[in-house]
C-alpha cells in the first residue's frame, strides 16, 4: 500500500520541488516563474501534511500550516502579478533578461 506510506508522499513533494526549480530556471517570462514558485510552495505544504498524518502527535498542526502556506501563496500571487504588470508598463517586456535596471 504505497498510499499509506510516508516516503511516497515525501518523494512526490520532492518531485514537485524539482519541477518548480526547473521551471524557475527555464521559463523565459516572469509569469512562468511565478507559476513555478507555486509548485515549490505546494511541495512544502504536501510535506507538512504528510508529516502531520504519519508522525505528528497533534493532527491539527499540519493542516493549520498548510492553510497558512495557502494564504501566503495567495498574497504572494496578488503582489507578484501587480509587480509584474507595473514592470511591464515600464519596460514593455516580461523577459527577465531584458529587465536589467531598476531605475524608475
Amino acid at each position, binding site marked *: 500500500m*504505497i*498510499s499509506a506510506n510516508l*516516503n511516497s*508522499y*515525501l518523494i512526490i513533494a*520532492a*518531485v*514537485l*520541488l*524539482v*519541477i518548480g*526549480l*526547473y521551471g524557475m*530556471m*527555464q*521559463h523565459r*517570462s516572469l*509569469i*512562468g516563474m*511565478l*507559476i*513555478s514558485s*507555486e509548485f515549490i510552495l*505546494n511541495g512544502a505544504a*504536501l510535506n507538512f*501534511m*504528510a*508529516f*502531520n*498524518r*504519519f*508522525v*505528528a*502527535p*497533534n*493532527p*491539527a*498542526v499540519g*493542516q493549520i*500550516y*498548510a*492553510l*497558512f502556506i*495557502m*494564504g*501566503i*501563496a*495567495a*498574497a504572494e*500571487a*496578488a*503582489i507578484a*502579478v*501587480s*509587480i509584474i*504588470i*507595473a514592470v511591464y*508598463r515600464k519596460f514593455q517586456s*516580461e523577459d527577465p*533578461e531584458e529587465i536589467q535596471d531598476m531605475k524608475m
Partner: protein
Amino acid sequence: MIVFEYVAEALFLGFVALTFMGGFMAIRSKMLMHAVLGLAVSLLGVAGLYFHLGSPFLAMMQILIYVGAVCIIIVLGVMIGNTPDQLAAKKQSRKNLPLALFTCALGFIGLFVAIISRTTFTAASDKIGDMSIRFVGENLLYQYCLAFELISVVLLTAIIGAIILARDGREEKTS
C-alpha cells in the same frame, strides 16, 4: 472490503499522475495560458493527495484558494504574455537549459537518497484529537491564534500593496 482498498490505491496513483502531468505541462509549454492550465490540473491532483492524507477540509481549501483564486489571479497576468505569433518570431535562448537540468537532477537524487536512506521517522505514540474540522478550528482559534491573525494582516497588506502598485503605474501613464 479489499476491493475498496484497490480502488483507493488506483485513485491515489491517478492523483499522482495528475499532479506530475500538470507539472510537466506547466513547465514545458511556451504559451502561458497552457502553463496556467497545467498548474490548475496539478493543484487538483495535490487536492486529491490531501484527501488521501485524511483531510477533506484541506482538499476543499486547496481547490477553493489555489485553483479558484491563485490561478485566476495568474490568468489576469497572462494578458501581458506573448501571443503565438510573437512566440514563433522570437528566438528562444536555451543556454541555461543544461544547467537547469543538471541542478534539478542533482537536487532530486540528493533528496531521493536522503528520503530512502532515512526511514526512521518514529510515529507519535498517542495522538491527541482527530483530523476533524472541529478540532482544526478549535486549535486555530485557541492555540494557533497568532497564525490566524497573522494571515489576515498579511492578506490585508497584500491587497493594499497590490492596489497601490497597480494604481501608480496608471497615474503615471495618464499624466
